[in-house]
């Protein structure tokens, strides 16, 4: 690659270099789709702060760096380091990806019930027929999002999950994306496709975890299509390395009476951006979005959600909480659009932020766009600090100030964690959050 070339040109050159090695290279329509996505990316380029959706997030750090497409290899990763980030206690299906490439040796896949397909996207692109892939790129609106377009051009692997009508997977499916430190800064573009038939039920966890000093760029896209009455519980745990960049989006289309529980925990990355876009396309669809972001030092974390109420009697509830310390900057943008005719919509949204240092910053923007009259919509946002009275109370109980403030911070973040139904996931995330706090040993004792 020519480092002197502009950022877009670098990606075009990289695409030319790797295009024959991408999954489904022999499939002309797919190659064509990649090319046109790349053309869309080339046309729009990287977003700048002049784009309303990127007003508070400057991604020039990503733009100016050169990332190399990761190659399949997982030598040098000790097994125990991977075990440390697995859900060991939890009986689950686990697909492990190293720098975006599937590792069969590290994955575990117990037998699946009938009507359930859990495959890698690479294998699906290579071997599966058209009906399996017809949902691909239907929901991620990559015309409006140049990172999603970039993902469509470069997507190499990820998970392909398909549940036929009434199918149910009792154990969660864990997608573990590990990012490792290599000589070159790597980029990978995981792509997941989840399709649930009528009344199907699934729990899926996406973990993005950076090891050591990884300074990679992960650009992930997940698309979910829900049939009538289908239920998905979706978790995203983002713990990239502090020198890594993470851009991720989740796009959901919901049919009649379907339900989505989404939990997004964002802790890592130098720059992390999470987009969730769900379309409540048919009557009675319901979505619950919970999110927690914690950032310190010079981290930048940005959460964008958009909920489109397209039909009557749809419901959404959203709660996002942020804890910002050091020189960190947190961004929240929650948009709720109630389209014409979507009467009896009930939409509630709230965003709370805790600023722990004078150099931290929060930019929050809850938005409502309403084109129907018989609706109930509300949102709220707060920015504040720890309650002085509560701190004082704890100190009178012989808990020193630092521990007391950690404890209260934990309680603040806990609101989101406690909503998690799956006990093993909840316990794990509790530990993850506690580990992020100063004086974690002390709190553990107290708790």
């Amino acid at each position: 690659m020519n480092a002197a070339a502009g950022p877009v040109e670098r990606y075009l050159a990289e695409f030319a270099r790797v295009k024959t090695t991408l999954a489904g290279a022999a499939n002309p329509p797919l190659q064509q789709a990649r090319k046109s996505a790349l053309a869309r990316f080339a046309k729009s380029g990287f977003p700048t702060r002049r784009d309303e959706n990127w007003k508070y997030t400057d991604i020039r750090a990503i733009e100016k760096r050169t990332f190399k497409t990761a190659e399949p290899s997982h030598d040098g990763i000790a097994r125990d380091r991977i075990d440390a980030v697995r859900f060991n206690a939890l009986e689950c299906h686990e697909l492990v990806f190293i720098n975006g490439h599937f590792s069969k040796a590290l994955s575990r896949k117990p037998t699946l019930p009938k009507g359930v397909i859990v495959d890698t996207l690479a294998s699906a692109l290579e071997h599966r027929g058209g009906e399996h892939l017809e949902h691909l790129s239907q929901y991620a609106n990559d015309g409006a999002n140049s990172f999603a377009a970039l993902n469509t051009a470069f997507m190499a692997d990820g998970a392909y999950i398909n549940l036929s009508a009434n199918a149910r997977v009792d154990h969660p499916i864990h997608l573990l994306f590990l990012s490792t430190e290599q000589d070159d800064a790597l980029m990978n573009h995981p792509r997941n496709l989840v399709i649930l038939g009528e009344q199907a039920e699934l729990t899926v966890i996406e973990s993005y975890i950076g090891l050591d000093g990884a300074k990679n760029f992960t650009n992930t896209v997940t698309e979910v299509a829900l049939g009538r009455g289908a239920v998905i519980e979706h978790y995203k745990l983002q713990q990239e390395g502090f020198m890594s960049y993470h851009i991720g989006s989740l796009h959901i289309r919901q049919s009649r009476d379907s339900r989505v529980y989404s939990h997004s925990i964002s802790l890592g990355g130098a720059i992390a951006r999470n987009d969730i876009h769900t379309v409540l396309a048919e009557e009675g669809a319901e979505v619950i979005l919970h999110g927690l972001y914690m950032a310190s030092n010079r981290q930048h974390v940005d959460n964008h959600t958009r909920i489109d109420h397209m039909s009557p009697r749809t419901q959404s509830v959203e709660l996002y909480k942020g804890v910002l310390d050091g020189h960190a900057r947190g961004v929240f943008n929650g948009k709720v659009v109630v389209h014409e005719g979507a009467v009896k919509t009930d939409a509630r949204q709230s965003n709370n932020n805790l600023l722990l240092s004078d150099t931290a910053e929060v930019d929050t923007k809850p938005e409502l766009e309403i084109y129907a009259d018989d609706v109930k919509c509300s949102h709220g946002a707060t920015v504040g600090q720890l309650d002085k009275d509560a701190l004082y109370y704890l100190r009178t109980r012989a808990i020193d100030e630092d521990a007391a403030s950690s404890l209260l911070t934990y309680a603040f973040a806990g609101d989101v964690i406690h909503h998690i139904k799956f006990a093993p996931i909840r316990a794990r995330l509790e530990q993850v959050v506690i580990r992020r706090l100063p004086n974690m040993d002390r709190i553990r004792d107290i708790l």
Partner: protein
Amino acid sequence: MSTQSKEVEALVKKLYQHGFYTDVETDTVPPGLNEGIIRLISKKKNEPEWLLEWRLNAFRHWLTMTEPNWAHVHHPPIDYQGISYYSAPKSDKALPKSLDEVDPKLLETYEKLGIPLREQEMLAGVAVDAVFDSVSVATTFKEKLADAGVIFCPFSEAVQDHPELVKQYLGSVVPPNDNFFAALNSAVFTDGSFCYIPKGIRCPLELSTYFRINAANTGQFERTLIIADAGSYVSYLEGCTAPMRDENQLHAAVVELIALGRAEIKYSTVQNWYPGDEHGKGGIYNFVTKRGECRGNNSKISWTQIETGSAITWKYPGCVLTGDNSVGEFYSVAVTNNYQQADTGSKMIHIGKNTRSTIISKGIAAGRGQNAYRGLVKVLESADGARNYTQCDSLLMGDRCGAHTFPYMEVKNSSAQIEHEASTSKIGEDQLFYCTQRGISEEDAVNMIVNGFCKKVFKTLPMEFAVEAQKLLGVSLEGAIG
């Protein structure tokens, strides 16, 4: 509900009450905008050289700017070369010394609008600096104000009589290059109001200006500058009505408020420009920049606005809270009906320590109206202990209108406490039922509920205005819902 369509129909047919046109000979420059026109305006107003330069700089900057497109409004492109930038009633050549000398046709206009200057002089105790198109023609109660040392005069007069004050403060809150419309205004503004309250004076009267847009094809570019010196207080009322007209008229005013130490400025607006007909034809484009700066410690600026008119409203009265312990307030009721569009809200910039701000915004959308709240609360690193509370509620009447909320909060100080809440709903059927069940007619019930919805804002208005505002709201929305 059964009565709804009938009542909405009645509402839609309601004609603009203040629609009439006074045929006064006017002194209008040809349409178009260039340096020559600006020089002409400046010359006609006999302005000093520095002000001409100031205008020309603004104009040169304006040429490099593009019209903003981020607001949630739609309109056909504006032809800035098709507007005549100066229009003064001919009668201004014989500067009137008293009302008797004023063109009787002008007085008639005011009578029709219910602003009888003579009566107000005697009864209301309000000083009115009435702006007919672009030149002020009559001012009352000057002596009483002069006794208190208050300067309240047309802007062009202030330029002649108090150039040092104008020069010191003009553009210090809204710089000429602030935004597209502010730059345009800075280049071509024709007149407006100027007000200076000296140290420690509590202004004995509520100051009031009624603006009118009259001659066809003249954009109205008002410039208001209010300075409250240390320890002073002033309450200022601004009200607008405009005659019926088919073409869209551009109104790009700039209002600057400066509150020095411990001073307080209360600025109230009832805006009822012509909103266009029931098909969305015509109506005023109201693109206004209003901003106040609490420059001194412990100062306070409070904005109250009732926005029922204009085809398009685009305004964000804001406060820059520079002084420590300063307070900014914004209370707003915005109504959009038929094809009206409003994108309005407030900006609170916290710079000083322990600065506090409150934003209460009530939006009512009916017919095909689009009503958006857009606000910014910004807390800089220096603003220790800053506090903001924002509440914006929207009421929807009809299934083809829209209500939107775009609040921006940018917080860089960990001791700041910022709260924002917003809700959107229609009038509750159970509330209506409760009232009708107690023998209150549906229409009265709706009125009660709407008035209750807006009460927090009306409460902050001076008495005369509160009455007018409630009347306006009743006219705009009576029977708009069943």
